[in-house]
Each structure stands twice: as structure tokens, then as C-alpha cells.
């Protein structure tokens, strides 16, 4: 930019920009590689044997490569099962959250009813309450109705999501009213309008919310730690933590193989959809404005 509009009288300026840009690139790249290092080290270590780690801890490359760590880790705990659990819990949570919060958002954005202002403020206020405050009573309550040690204990509380309602309300307000009016003149009812006119028009919002909800559920740890006991029901992060607890500071190769099994597919999914994922998360971060 500055190179196009050099300031008269300071002939050094346009030339000075290039080393500055290069230094900037160097700093940003170095920072980025530092962010990447834990992943790289995890992958490399996941192929190392115990002897190499003790004798030559600073070796970058495994010698010999020991892919056996992966089947070994998979054989010790039901990671496949945990994968499936995490995946379907996240998918069900996303589906229920999108549907229910879009419905509530539609009511707040488009339906005139008594007390809507007060109710909306109450919605926003509940957003302030951290889950940790309600953890013990929630446990007692779910234990009473027999939901502890079941996946519903993770899904149902996660669906209560005032932030989602707030976010989608912003999107619905931006949909042109004329579209809804046209549908109404064509004889469509309230739900029909919501389903066939509003929902398709807030797809970017639903996508962003879906991604955030999925990641939150997929990575959630405290809730599974509190609510699940049975090993077959464990989610991926919970099983990973138990595995590291049982195999302690000795079998790092196995633990990092297990971590890689948990992390790499998420990273690949992220890299495929990175542009959209980053943009939606940035946009919803600004959603409060």
C-alpha cells in the first residue's frame, strides 16, 4: 500500500517497506510454527518406542519407526466406541440446538406477544450463569430421573442455549419481511413460513452455530467426567483422559498415539472446511455487537 503512494521527500520510504514486510512474515511464520510444534511433536512421538524416548529425547525422527503404538493404544481401550459416542452425541446436540433455538429466535424476531421484551432479557441473563454453578443440582436432578450415566445427560443440558437464540435472532431479523409476506399471501401457515422461508434464508447462521455447537460438544470434558461412569459410554476426551491416567508417565508413545487418533481426524475436517469454520467463528464472536 505504502509502496504505491510514496511520500514525497522521503525517497527511502518505499524501499524500506520490503524489509519490514519480510520481517513481519518471518515473525508471523515463526509464531505459526510455534503453534504447530505441539502437533508435530505429538505425531513424531506417537511413533517412538520407550527406549528412544529415554536415551535420545531430543531426536526428532523416530528410530525405529514404531507404528505398533497405534494398534497397541486401540487395543487397550475402546476408542472406536468412544469415537462413535462423541460423534453421535455431537450430531444429535447440533440438530436439536439448531431446531429449537431457531424456533425461539423466530418467535423473538417475528411474533408480537406480551412479555417478549422481558422474556428476551431473561434469556440473555441465563447466558451469564456458568455451567459449573448448576453442576451439583443438575446431577441430583438427573440422578432422580435416572439419566445419570446416559448420553441424554450430556445432550439435553447442552440444548438449553440462550446464546444460540440470540445469534439466530440477529440472522432472522436480517431476512426481508417481504419474503414472508409473499408466502403468507400464498396461504402458508406460521410453521410453513418458518420452515420453508425463514430457515433456508438463515443458512449461514445455522452453519456457524452448527460448527460452534459441534466443536463444543465434541471437545466437552467436564460434563462427561461428571455424568458418565460406564466405559462403553465414554466420549473421546473422557476415554483419553482415563487412558493417560492409567498408563501414566511411562507409555508416552501410546498416549500420544491415542491423542493423535483423537485429534487428527478433527484437524483434517477443519482443514477441509477451514475458510468457512474460521469465518463463522469470527462472525459469531462479533455477534454480541
Amino acid at each position, binding site marked *: 500500500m505504502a509502496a504505491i503512494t510514496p511520500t514525497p521527500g522521503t525517497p527511502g520510504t518505499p524501499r524500506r517497506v520490503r524489509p519490514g514486510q519480510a520481517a513481519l512474515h518471518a515473525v508471523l511464520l515463526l*509464531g*505459526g510454527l510455534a503453534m504447530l510444534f505441539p502437533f508435530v*511433536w505429538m505425531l513424531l512421538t506417537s511413533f517412538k518406542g520407550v527406549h528412544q524416548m529415554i536415551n535420545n529425547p531430543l531426536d526428532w525422527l523416530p528410530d525405529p519407526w514404531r507404528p505398533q503404538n497405534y494398534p497397541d493404544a486401540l487395543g487397550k481401550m475402546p476408542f472406536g466406541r468412544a469415537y462413535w459416542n462423541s460423534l453421535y452425541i455431537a450430531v444429535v446436540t447440533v440438530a436439536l440446538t439448531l431446531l429449537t433455538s431457531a424456533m425461539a429466535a423466530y418467535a423473538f424476531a417475528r411474533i*408480537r406477544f406480551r412479555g417478549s421484551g422481558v*422474556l428476551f432479557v431473561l434469556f440473555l441473563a441465563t447466558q451469564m*450463569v456458568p455451567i459449573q454453578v448448576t453442576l451439583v443440582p443438575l446431577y441430583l436432578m438427573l440422578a432422580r430421573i435416572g439419566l445419570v450415566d446416559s448420553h441424554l445427560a450430556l445432550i439435553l443440558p447442552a440444548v438449553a*442455549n440462550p446464546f444460540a437464540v440470540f445469534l439466530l435472532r440477529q440472522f432472522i431479523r436480517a431476512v426481508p*419481511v417481504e419474503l414472508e409476506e409473499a408466502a403468507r399471501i400464498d396461504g402458508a401457515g406460521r410453521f410453513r413460513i418458518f420452515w420453508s422461508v425463514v430457515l433456508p434464508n438463515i443458512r449461514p447462521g445455522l452453519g456457524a452455530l452448527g460448527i460452534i455447537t459441534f466443536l463444543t460438544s465434541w471437545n466437552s470434558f467436564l460434563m462427561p467426567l461428571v455424568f458418565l461412569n460406564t466405559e462403553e459410554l465414554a466420549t473421546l476426551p473422557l476415554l483419553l483422559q482415563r487412558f493417560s491416567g492409567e498408563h501414566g508417565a511411562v507409555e508416552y508413545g501410546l498416549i500420544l498415539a491415542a*491423542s493423535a487418533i483423537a485429534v487428527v481426524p478433527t484437524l483434517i475436517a477443519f482443514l477441509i472446511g477451514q475458510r468457512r469454520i474460521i469465518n463463522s467463528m469470527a462472525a459469531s464472536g462479533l455477534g454480541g455487537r
Partner: protein
Amino acid sequence: MALLTRARPRAAAAPPAGRGVRTRDGWWAAFFLAPQVLCLLLFLAFPLAFALVLAFVQWDGLGPVTFVGLDNLGAQLTSPAFLDATWNTIKIALITVPVGLGLAVAIAVGLNSIRGRAAHVYRVLYFLPVVTSSVAAALMWQIILADNENGVLNTSLERWFGISGPDWLFDPQWVIVSISIVTIWSSLGLNVVIFLAGLQTIPPQLMEAARIDGAGPWRTFRSITLPMLSPTVFFSTIVAVISSLQAFDQIYVLVDPYKNEGARTIVYLVWRLGFREFQLGPSSAAALLLLVLTLLVTLVQFAAQKRLVHYDS
């Protein structure tokens, strides 16, 4: 429009066309609101009310319930365990919030001033930890920070610089630093992209005008970029403070707080009291104090916002 809004005349005149079709239709509103409202009542409002009650009773979950008034809250406020946990929590917030957000602003400004593919690649690199499970992240960092022959950081320090590094995961002085490093690493990318989005809303004419007036890069940053970015910074600060006050996952896995007093945070205490010692009253009291602390800090931030945040109308 007038045909569709069968509302009070006063209200019918008020909303501009953009506000939408707003018919007074209580039943439809109830239908659309019911699922979320029901979930919120059952899984948020009711447990919150229950927590308020629990904080004032003594109960192990099975036996009789005894009302103890303010004893639980008083006991927490005077117990060294709670005070230590609060102090640890505040220390983590005091490191992670300014350092994390400061780094994020710097990186976002840097990324915003370069063009092309490279900026895109860097953005992805910084964002990778955001999509990584906190448990896996803690395990990756454990092997970097461990104070034994496996720990990459200390073995490198020893071999290349002859420094014998601290026990990152057990020394109470350093545990907070380790937790902060991992926390910042995990959340940096999200803040970077949020700030980047904020930077891109600043009209380029402003920057241009400042440059024409002879402002250097630092002056432009101080007088244009930072004020224009301040609403975004404010929002991110609120979110970062709240999430650092609730820190648990990465700590629980990175450094076993059971063995390591320096790593015990308020949420750890709530979890420990409630689910390992079955002292439901004290656990709820500690949780309630966490809520009060969160509200207080947020209120202070909103008060400071009036002076520090610039809103463009």
C-alpha cells in the same frame, strides 16, 4: 404491512418495515418458544434455584437436610482451600487475559497488513489449537513440559544452554505459568480471527487520512486502530475473563490438581467438594461465590467500558 400487524395502533406505527411481520399471536409464540424455554427452565433455571438452596443447607445427597444459613458461604470465605483456589484462578486470569489478548491484537494487526496466500496459511496455523480437544492439548503439552528425560523443553534448555529448567508441572511457582501457556495457546487463534474481522471493518479512508496527516505506524495504531477495535477488544475481554475464571479441563489433565495444590482452581474445588467428597452444601457455596465473582468482574468491566471503549454511532 398495516394489514398484517393487527397490533395496538401505537405499536403498529412504531416498528419500521424492517422489524418484520409481528402479529399478536400468543399461541404461536408459545409453540415456537416452548422447546428452548422448557430446556432452559429444566436444565438452567431450576438447577440454579436448587443451587441457591443447596448453598444454605448441609446435605450429603442421601441423609437429612439441615438448614445452616450463611455457614457454608462463611466457611468457604474463610477456608484456606477456597482462598487459595480463588487466588490461583485470579492469577491465571491475570496472566492469560492481558498476554493472550495482547498477542492476539499484535498478530491480527500483522496479518491484516500482509496480503495474499501467506496470511491465509498463518491464520490456519494459529487457529489449529482452537479446534483441538483440551484433553489432547493437555497431553501434548505434558510431554513438552515434563521435568524428566521426556520433557523436550527442559532437556533442550539443559543441552543447548546449560540451564536446568524448572519443574513446570509440579513447582507451584511455575504451574500457573504452564497452565497459562497452554490456555493462551488454545485460545489465541480464536481471538486473532475475531480481531481480524474487527480490523477489517475499519474504513481504509481513516488509515489513509492518518497517513496523509503524517502519522507513523505506531501513532496510527494508537489513535485509529485501537479505538476503532476497542468494542471488539472489550467483548473479547469479557469472554476471556469469564472463561479463565471457569478454567478446568486443560488443568485437570495437564497437572493433577489432586497432587498439586498450586493448580487448584475454584471450579476444581466445586467439582472436588461435590463429586468426590459429597459435601453438596459447601460445593454449591463455592460455585455461588464463583458466580458472584464472575458478575462482579463483569460489572467492573462494563463500568470501565464507558471510559475506555469507543463506539462509533
